[in-house]
C-alpha cells in the first residue's frame, strides 16, 4: 500500500486546501499523473503522484485544509513493497531522494528539503469585472472564472453576486488577499535565504554577438509561432555549464552539499502586477533550443493561467533570472533555499569592446552568479562563468 500525502510545494508551505480530486476509488493511476488540485498560499497547483497503482481509498474530502505530510489517499501498488516509502517527487533528483530511507515523517522531511520554488500564481481579471465587483462589494479574490485558465469576466462576478444574494455558499475555497499572501511567501523565503546563506557574488561581461546573431538568423527561417526567444540559448548554455561545475546545481541540506545529478532549471517568471514564480524546466541540460522553447512556452502559459504542477514547484535545482529584459545591466540574485545558486542574465546591449587591440562595437551582456559559499567557492563559480562564456561563443553547439 502506498500512502499519498500532502506534498510540500515550497519551504514555507504548512498546509494546502484540497480543491478537487481528479481520481476516485478503483481508478488506475500512473507515475506522474495529476491526481488532485491543491490551493496553496501561492495559488492552485496540479499535484502529481509518483507511483503506479490502483486507488484503494480517498482519505481526505475536497474542501479541507490539510497540513503538509498528512495522508490524502491510499494506493494499492503492483508489488505492494513500497508501503513505507515517503512521498517523493521525481526520482533521484530531489533532495528528498537523498534522505535516509528510514525517515517516514514526511512533514519534517519536506519542510527541510523542498526548495522554495514559487511565490504566486495570479488570477487574471478583466477591468470591467473588477469594477463590477467593487460596485457590488464583492471581493474579487472570491470569484472563480467559468473555466480554468480563463480571465474572470463580468458574468463570473454576476454569478457570485447571485449566490451571495440567495444565501448559498460557494464550494470553492476563498483565497485570501493575493498581494499580501504573496508578500508573506516572498518574505519568508528571502529572509531565510539572507539569514542562512552566505552568498558570494560574481559578474562577468560576455560578448554575446555570435549567439544573438545565430538566433536572429535561425528566426529568419522560422514562422512567427516557431521563433526562439533570445533567452533560450542562454538557458541551454547555463544548463550545460552547470554540468561542468555540479556543486552549483543542487541543495544545501542539514549541513551538507547535495548536488543533483539532473539539472532542473528554475525559470524566474515575473507576474503581471508584481511577484514571481520560479518553476522548473526538467532535465534542461539534455534539451536543445527547440524543446526548451516548447517547455518555456508551456510553463509561462501555465504560470499565467495558474496551472502549475507540483513537481515543477518543488524540484528546481538552480534558478535562472532574465531580469535584463527589463533593462537592468546586472542582477545580483537572492538564492532560493535550499538551492545553492542563482544565475542572472543582464541586458544585452551594444558596447565598446576591445578585440585584438582595436575598439569594436559588440553585443555584450553582464552575466552574474550568486552562490552559497558553504557549497562552493568563488574559484568554482568563476570556472562556471568561464564555461558559460566558452559555450556562448560556439552557438551551433547549443542547438
Amino acid at each position, binding site marked *: 500500500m502506498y500512502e499519498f500525502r500532502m506534498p510540500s510545494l515550497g519551504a514555507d508551505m504548512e498546509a494546502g486546501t484540497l480543491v478537487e480530486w481528479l481520481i476516485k476509488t478503483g481508478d488506475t493511476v500512473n507515475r506522474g499523473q495529476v491526481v488532485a488540485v491543491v490551493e496553496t498560499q501561492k495559488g492552485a497547483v496540479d499535484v502529481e503522484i509518483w507511483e503506479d497503482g490502483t486507488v484503494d481509498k480517498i482519505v481526505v474530502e475536497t474542501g479541507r485544509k490539510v497540513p503538509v505530510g498528512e495522508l490524502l489517499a491510499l494506493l494499492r501498488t503492483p508489488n505492494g513493497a513500497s508501503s513505507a516509502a515517503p512521498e517523493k517527487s521525481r526520482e533521484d533528483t530531489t533532495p528528498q531522494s537523498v534522505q535516509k530511507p528510514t525517515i517516514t515523517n514526511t512533514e519534517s522531511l519536506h519542510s527541510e528539503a523542498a526548495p522554495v520554488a514559487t511565490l504566486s500564481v495570479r488570477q487574471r481579471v478583466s*477591468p470591467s469585472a473588477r469594477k463590477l465587483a467593487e460596485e457590488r462589494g464583492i471581493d474579487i479574490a472570491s470569484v472563480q472564472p467559468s473555466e480554468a485558465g480563463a480571465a474572470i469576466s463580468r458574468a463570473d462576478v454576476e454569478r457570485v453576486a447571485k449566490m451571495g444574494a440567495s444565501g448559498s455558499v460557494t464550494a470553492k475555497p476563498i483565497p485570501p488577499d493575493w498581494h499580501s499572501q504573496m508578500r508573506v511567501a516572498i518574505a519568508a523565503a528571502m529572509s531565510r535565504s539572507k539569514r542562512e546563506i552566505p552568498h558570494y557574488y560574481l559578474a562577468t561581461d560576455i560578448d554575446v554577438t555570435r549567439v544573438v546573431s545565430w538566433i536572429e538568423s535561425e528566426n529568419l527561417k522560422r514562422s512567427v509561432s516557431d521563433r526562439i526567444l533570445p533567452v533560450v540559448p542562454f538557458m541551454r548554455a547555463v544548463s550545460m555549464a552547470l554540468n561542468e561545475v555540479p556543486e552549483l546545481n543542487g541543495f544545501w541540506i542539514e549541513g551538507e552539499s547535495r548536488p543533483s545529478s539532473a539539472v532542473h532549471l528554475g525559470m524566474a517568471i515575473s507576474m503581471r502586477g508584481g511577484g514571481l514564480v520560479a518553476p522548473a524546466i526538467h532535465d534542461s541540460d539534455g534539451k536543445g533550443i527547440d524543446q526548451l522553447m516548447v517547455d518555456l512556452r508551456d510553463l509561462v502559459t501555465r504560470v499565467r493561467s495558474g496551472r502549475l504542477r507540483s513537481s515543477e514547484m518543488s524540484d528546481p535545482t538552480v534558478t535562472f533570472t532574465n531580469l535584463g529584459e527589463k533593462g537592468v545591466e546586472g542582477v545580483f540574485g537572492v538564492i532560493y533555499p535550499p538551492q545553492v545558486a542563482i544565475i542572472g542574465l543582464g541586458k544585452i546591449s551594444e558596447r565598446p569592446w576591445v578585440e585584438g587591440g582595436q575598439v569594436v562595437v559588440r553585443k555584450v551582456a553582464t552575466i552574474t552568479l550568486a552562490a552559497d559559499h558553504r557549497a562552493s567557492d568563488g574559484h568554482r563559480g568563476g570556472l562556471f562563468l568561464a564555461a558559460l562564456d566558452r559555450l556562448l561563443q560556439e552557438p551551433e553547439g547549443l542547438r
Partner: protein
Amino acid sequence: MTQYSRDQIREIILDALGAIAPEVDPSKISPDRPIRDQADIDSFDFLNFIIRLHETFEIDIPEKDYSELLTLNSAIDYLARRCTENG
C-alpha cells in the same frame, strides 16, 4: 486580403493586448509611449502579441520589424502599410 481602416487596426491591436494583459484598461494606453512598459509585457507576452497580429492580419512580421511595433501609433502605421503592400 482584407482591408482595414486605422480604427479597425487600433481595435485589433487593443484586443490582442487585452487577451494578453486583461487587467490593462485600453483607454489608458498612451499612443506614443512603448506598449511594453505601459502594459508590463515581457518578451514572451510580446511574442504572443506578435503571433496574434500575424494571425489576424495574415502577414509575416519579421523580427527586425519589432521595433516598429513598440507604440500603439507606430504599430498602426506599420500594420496599415503592410496590409496595403500585401493587398
